[in-house]
């Protein structure tokens, strides 16, 4: 596949040649990551089925909107990246800021993924952390750097097949072990009646339903599914606009089944009265005690595959944004013909930084909590810019810069004060929408600016 990579478009966008089914499976492979597999099983052990909201109300509506509104707009704009869209819709400052914020987050995500792989290999194989980080970094680096997005997407698709196969086997064996579906349900609700409820009470300390709908459903989820470069890059690499939109809808259908992979093991650990000290040990416990030895190995491979498929996509996306959205803007005389070489070098550099930072991620608290906190700080303001920029002609460039800076400051302050991260996301989003709308009256764009390619057209 590396021989087919001749220029930057081949490397970053697979030569715009991907079919809907590859993109759809790659989206799911990229989405189900370290926090997905290990963290979600742990959270469902504490919360029950409500954890699946991250895959249902916290994903599906935003994926439908991405397929119908955002992907067509990005395609019409002809961009390589979401920051490039920001650059066309607003200005170069927003493009560089959005790229810097996303890249910073991705570097931490790469480090977190490598750390998660190290923890898993330590649990199952007994490897020291440094060895796991070096081996997994080398494997991912080899195919990501040589084959670019095409190699990543096809590898992701294969990994998703393994993940779903293992998920179905775990569900079948787990229900059999529990004595059938009815016995499973009785055991689960006997432990806590709310474990089979999609929503927990509004005064729940960790997962109150209004915060789930307003924070997760209205802010975090659309910000991720409609604005994340890591996810949307493969839709920009589709062979046609139809393939791009259809792939997202297909991914949404597959996403509906993801709780079987990542939430069910946590529920199974409750039903089988797992002897574990920490919720995050639910998945390793299920693998050790429910699966026969041969399948444990397959499941172990599936988890590694899930982690690697997120890691490779993050590397390529960060490399793209630094090459085109940061270097391309800050050094306008840079030769675009060198983008391929620079992109490959940056992929290697980001991977090395991630490998260096990975051992320190463990000291920053729970993986899941850490990544969600980082996300909630940036996603409210960025979503406001994306939403008003895509749906209206009113949002102006100067107002967008002011709102991005002040919105991130506000959400950092709210996080520092200990406010629930879902409320932080909603609060900073609500502020950013109102501020962007109001400031755009104060600092409007030039009236002759042509936004026809950059704004959603109503039917």
């Amino acid at each position: 596949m590396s021989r087919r990579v001749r220029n930057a478009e081949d490397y970053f966008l697979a030569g715009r040649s991907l079919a809907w089914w590859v993109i759809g499976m790659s989206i799911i492979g990229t989405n189900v990551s370290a926090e997905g597999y290990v963290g979600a099983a742990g959270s469902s052990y504490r919360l029950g089925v409500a954890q699946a909201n991250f895959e249902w109300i916290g994903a599906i509506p935003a994926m439908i909107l991405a397929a119908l509104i955002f992907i067509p707009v990005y395609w019409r704009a002809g961009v390589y990246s979401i920051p490039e869209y920001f650059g066309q819709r607003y200005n170069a400052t927003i493009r560089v800021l959005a790229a810097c914020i996303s890249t910073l987050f991705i570097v931490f995500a790469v480090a977190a993924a490598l750390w998660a792989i190290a923890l898993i290999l330590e649990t199952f194989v007994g490897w020291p952390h440094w060895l796991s980080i070096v081996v997994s970094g080398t494997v991912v680096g080899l195919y990501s750097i040589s084959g670019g997005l095409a190699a990543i997407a096809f590898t992701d698709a294969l990994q998703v097949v393994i993940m779903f196969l293992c998920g179905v086997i775990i569900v079948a064996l787990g229900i059999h072990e529990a004595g059938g579906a009815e016995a499973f349900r009785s055991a689960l609700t006997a432990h806590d009646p709310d474990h089979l409820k999609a929503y927990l009470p509004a005064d729940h300390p960790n997962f109150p339903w209004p915060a789930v709908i307003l924070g997760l459903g209205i802010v975090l989820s659309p910000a991720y599914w409609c604005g994340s470069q890591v996810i949307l890059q493969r839709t920009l690499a589709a062979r046609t606009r139809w393939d791009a939109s259809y792939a997202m809808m297909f991914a949404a259908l597959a996403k509906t089944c993801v709780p079987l992979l990542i939430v069910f093991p946590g529920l199974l650990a409750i039903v089988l009265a797992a002897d574990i000290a920490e919720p995050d040990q639910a998945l390793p416990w299920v693998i050790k005690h429910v699966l026969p030895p041969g399948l444990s190995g397959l499941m172990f491979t599936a988890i590694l595959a899930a982690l690697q498929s997120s890691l490779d996509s993050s590397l390529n996306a960060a490399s793209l944004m630094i090459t085109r959205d940061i270097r391309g803007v800050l050094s306008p005389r840079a030769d675009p013909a060198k983008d391929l070489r620079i992109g490959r070098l940056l992929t290697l550099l980001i991977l090395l930084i991630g490998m260096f930072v990975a051992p320190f991620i463990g000291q920053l608290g729970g993986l899941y909590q850490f990544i969600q906190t980082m996300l909630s700080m940036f996603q409210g303001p960025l979503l406001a810019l994306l939403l008003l920029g895509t749906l209206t002609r009113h949002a102006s460039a100067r107002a967008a810069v002011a709102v991005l800076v002040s919105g991130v400051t506000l959400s950092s302050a709210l996080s520092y004060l200990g406010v629930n991260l879902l409320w932080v996301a909603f609060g900073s989003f609500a502020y950013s929408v109102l501020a962007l709308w109001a400031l755009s009256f104060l600092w409007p764009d030039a009236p002759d600016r042509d936004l026809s390619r950059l704004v959603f057209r109503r039917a």
Partner: protein
Amino acid sequence: MPDAVLHWLTTLPVGYAIVATYLVFVFLLVFLWSRPAAEIFDGAPDRSRWRDIRLLGTVLIIVQLAIYQFFR
């Protein structure tokens, strides 16, 4: 967010969450079918039924409504 609003939100019954979820999906269904066929099939090799994003979206929404009905 002001404390009074947060406090008020914590008093809302869970049933409202299910109603809000149904409304979100019904809105999406209406929006889905408001898109013209020319836009839906833009770039598709042909207009066969299985390529209609609106049909795939409808199946998806029905599955979601069934899930939230089951786990209500």
